[in-house]
């Protein structure tokens, strides 16, 4: 199956799924990341759409569950789960300000956009939003979280 996002149409083909105009197949690494909710929101939505349209993809996802249950490791899963190459939040902040050496900048851009690291993109989104939201809005949200959870603090821990 090929999904051309740019043109918005599907072409039935082999087992692979292409999720971008760059014509790439849907890899097992993509499916592993999908199960862990670790892909970019756009890619997650595309795969969801495909899984609904093609139930046979469920078999591949189930096979990943089986492999995990049996304790078989994947280097990519360990790398992603442990976030081995994720830039620190401080480096993401410097990236936003353009205050980082060029080669490192290129790598961070690659990690955010080509790898599409959801965790780093979330950190970056948060750093950007901090510049846009008022202190009142942020404080009100944090207070809500605190008040709705603090009662569980002693009891649960």
């Amino acid at each position, binding site marked *: 199956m090929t999904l051309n996002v740019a043109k918005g149409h599907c072409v039935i083909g082999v087992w692979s799924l292409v999720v971008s105009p760059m014509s790439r197949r849907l890899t097992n690494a993509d499916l592993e990341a999908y199960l862990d909710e670790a892909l970019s929101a756009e890619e997650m939505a595309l795969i969801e759409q495909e899984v*609904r349209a093609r139930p046979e993809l469920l078999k591949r996802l189930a096979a990943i569950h089986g492999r995990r249950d049996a304790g078989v490791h994947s280097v*990519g899963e360990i790398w992603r789960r*442990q976030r081995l190459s994720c830039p620190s939040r401080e480096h993401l902040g410097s990236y936003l300000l353009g205050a980082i050496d060029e080669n490192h900048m290129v790598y961070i851009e690659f990690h955010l956009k080509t790898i599409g690291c959801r965790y780093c993109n979330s950190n970056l989104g948060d750093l950007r939003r901090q510049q846009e939201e008022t202190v009142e809005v942020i404080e009100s949200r944090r207070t809500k979280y605190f008040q709705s959870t603090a009662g569980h603090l002693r009891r649960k821990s």
Partner: protein
Amino acid sequence: MPASSDADSLLIERIRRGDGEAWNDLITRYEGRLLAFVESRLGRRGPSEDIVQEAFLGFLNSLPNYDGKRPLESYLFSICAYKLTDHLRREGRRPAVPLSAGSDSTGDWQLQGSARPASSIVRSGERKELEEKAVMEALCDQIERWRERGEWTKLMCAELLFVRGWANKEVAEELEISEQQVANYKFDFIARLRTLVRDQELSQEVFPELYEEEANK
């Protein structure tokens, strides 16, 4: 990104003692990135905030079991992902995935050739953790070495090959290097990991992708 920082460990200890100020600090430190994580997927602020709230509650519930081996941020993201997935399933957006691919619970991931299926090996949770830790440390060393030497292309190459699972040709096109270079980088990388597996006396059968080419011969 290694284990939790000292600052996070201290924060957790204070929260375990019921320190409200420490709990507030944790919320202040992490809520923004968790909200961005959820909102990027849901696109709606209200339900996204609810999920983050559930994730914080989930964190308190799981605190007795949190051993600090995973960085706090990654642990919070994983709870958030779980809550988000649950929400999406309830909304009917995310299809439920069966737990196995059929009557054969191992599915179709097994090694080709004569290798014994890993499912037949009795392995404890501790053993699996030890395997993951050994590989993680080796990967960390390698990534750090690439960074120190400014070998960013090698890092990007390995990340595309293993984290995204791209084919050599696709990686070569993306990074504007030759397929032969990609193949060489991949060969060196896999050779190092195989050495680690051998030296640490880990089972080859649980790292099938490192031996795929041999199995396909």
